[in-house]
């Protein structure tokens, strides 16, 4: 099959990448991004049609729960295949993940 990369059909996939991926610079020369994860959540909420939840402040709890659940799920998946593969390859110390 052929891959697709059509503006609208793959917009959510693009948002996932631009907001969550890419090099994250940890240094004091970076403008503090305290409010930024919220942007991601806002945006995703709107796309998923959950503005109402957000409006009533339900999003924070929901988001925490989903994240926790997903983290556990990913860990479980990793254990499943750990014996035959290396999932993540650590690279230079400067390039660190946001969640770890």
């Amino acid at each position, binding site marked *: *099959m*052929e*891959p*697709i*990369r059509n503006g609208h059909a*793959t*917009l959510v*996939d*693009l*948002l*996932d*990448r*631009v*907001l*969550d*991926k*890419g*090099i*994250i*610079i940890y*240094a*004091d*020369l*970076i*403008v*503090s*991004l305290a*409010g*930024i994860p919220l*942007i991601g959540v*806002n*945006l995703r*909420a*709107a*796309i998923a049609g959950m503005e109402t939840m957000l409006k009533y402040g339900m999003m924070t709890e929901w988001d925490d729960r989903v994240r926790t659940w*997903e983290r556990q*799920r*990913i860990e479980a*998946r*990793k254990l*499943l*295949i750990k014996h*035959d*593969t290396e*999932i*993540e*390859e*650590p*690279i*230079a*110390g*400067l*390039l*660190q*993940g*946001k*969640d*770890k």
Partner: protein
Amino acid sequence: MQNRETIETIINNMVMAPEEGRYVYCIADSAQSVHLGKIGIDGNEVYTVPYNNICALVHKCNAEPYKSDDPEVVKAWVISHDRVIQTAWEKWGNVLPINFDTIIKEVSANSAEQNLVAWLAGEYEGLRNVLQRVKNKVEFGIQISWDPRGVAQQIMRTNKEIQKMESEIAGKSKGLAYMHRQKIEGLLKQQMETGADAYFRDFFGRIKQVVDEIKIEKTKKPENGLQMILNVACLVERDKSQDLGQALDSINNLENFSVRFIGPWPPYSFVSRG
């Protein structure tokens, strides 16, 4: 009196004047110092800041994060962010995307641009290594979903234990039959969970064989009655994506399974840990 006002004006300007910053889109494998036009976020002029044989793509901005409550605005920013990276990717072939809303600021006597160059210099070796690792490679997303109803029916048809239990329902009292059905349901659920894990392993193995790197992503919530059982990002050599397409065909042809194959993108998911 006038003197005092002047001093106040100066102090106010010092306090109020926004610090300058540089919004950074990506690192590119090029020593070129060029302007790429007004292709940035909010139509900002994008240009390169070179160090040695690499460069950063930036636009000038205030040292404040981009923030908005309007999802449409943020969506437009994100699309612009990607467009700059795609432009650099097409122009130079090898880029390292940087996370959205990364802004370098001035610190004490150093300008934002000086700080950026110092950062590039300090991290040069690491950045070169990553550029080498992702050279000539593209990222794809693969999402595999199954139709839980179809899978359940298949299990009900083929699972010996469930069939045996089904046949035992006849002749049981209403209450016992109910409990029996509950048992069958439990068994079915268990079979489906085991099945999802087994399929995940099988598909993961097949994909891994035809890609250079693979990363497990969160599965998404069900859509159109389909349940996602695998979501991965892969890094593949530019001219080997056909092998991947073929491997995915064999999965897509399975009954009750569907594959979403998206990309190619710059190596967004393969430049940082996590």
